[in-house]
């Protein structure tokens, strides 16, 4: 891992179009300002990781018609919007 030391107000450039600025350091928290093109995803690592893991868990490569989701739906007694 590349490690750089920066002061408040200083920035780091990554590639042509991504820039990280250290805005504030308070105790063990750091506020970082991020400039990046809209097509570059910027997420908190742990949140992104959970989304990724859940996507993988939720994906099926088999015929989904056999999934037990209908069992779930038939167990719902009060269906939204009055559907039976």
């Amino acid at each position, binding site marked *: 891992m590349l490690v750089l030391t920066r002061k408040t107000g200083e920035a780091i450039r990554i590639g042509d179009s991504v820039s990280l600025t250290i805005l504030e350091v308070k105790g063990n928290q750091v506020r970082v300002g991020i400039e990046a093109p*809209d*097509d570059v*995803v*910027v*997420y908190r690592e742990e*949140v*992104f990781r*959970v*989304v*990724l*893991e*859940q*996507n*993988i*868990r*939720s*994906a*099926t*490569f088999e015929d*989904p*018609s056999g*999934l*037990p*989701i*209908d*069992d*779930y*739906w*038939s*167990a*719902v*007694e*009060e269906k*939204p*919007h009055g*559907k*039976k």
Partner: protein
Amino acid sequence: MERNDAMITEADHKKQAGGVRTGERPDLPGGGQWIIDMKRGLPGFEGVRRYSLASKGGETPFCLLSGIDKGPTFIVINPFLVCPDYSPVLPEREARFLGIDDPSRAILFVIVTIRRDPLDVTVNLRAPVVINADLNTAAQVVLEDSELPLRHSIMPKKGK
């Protein structure tokens, strides 16, 4: 094409706290099958960009989001059906990325996770799939609101 419910941007969040609620099932064009361009793939499946979205059929409100050409299939649902209080705020940069000027016209789905127990069913309310119905483009968007659950149970409230 009708929206399935409303989403708002950060900018108009304050004046329009809840958004509009139609609660309708989206009317899928093209004989019930809709081809959408997932602009950066889905996390975990970045290489798959073209998906079809179709109703699962039968009595259920579930839809199938299927990667074209041997891609993965996800069960998805209109989040407002399973969480009537849902009030997602689309981050500005994601709105720009998707070309969504009016977030209340965006169509939202959330991915359903089922596990061994068929009644242990959750949806990810933090990371909906947001569709621009005018351009047939979409992206899975992680919302800023950290209160939104990544695993929201849609277990039946009543039961034995």
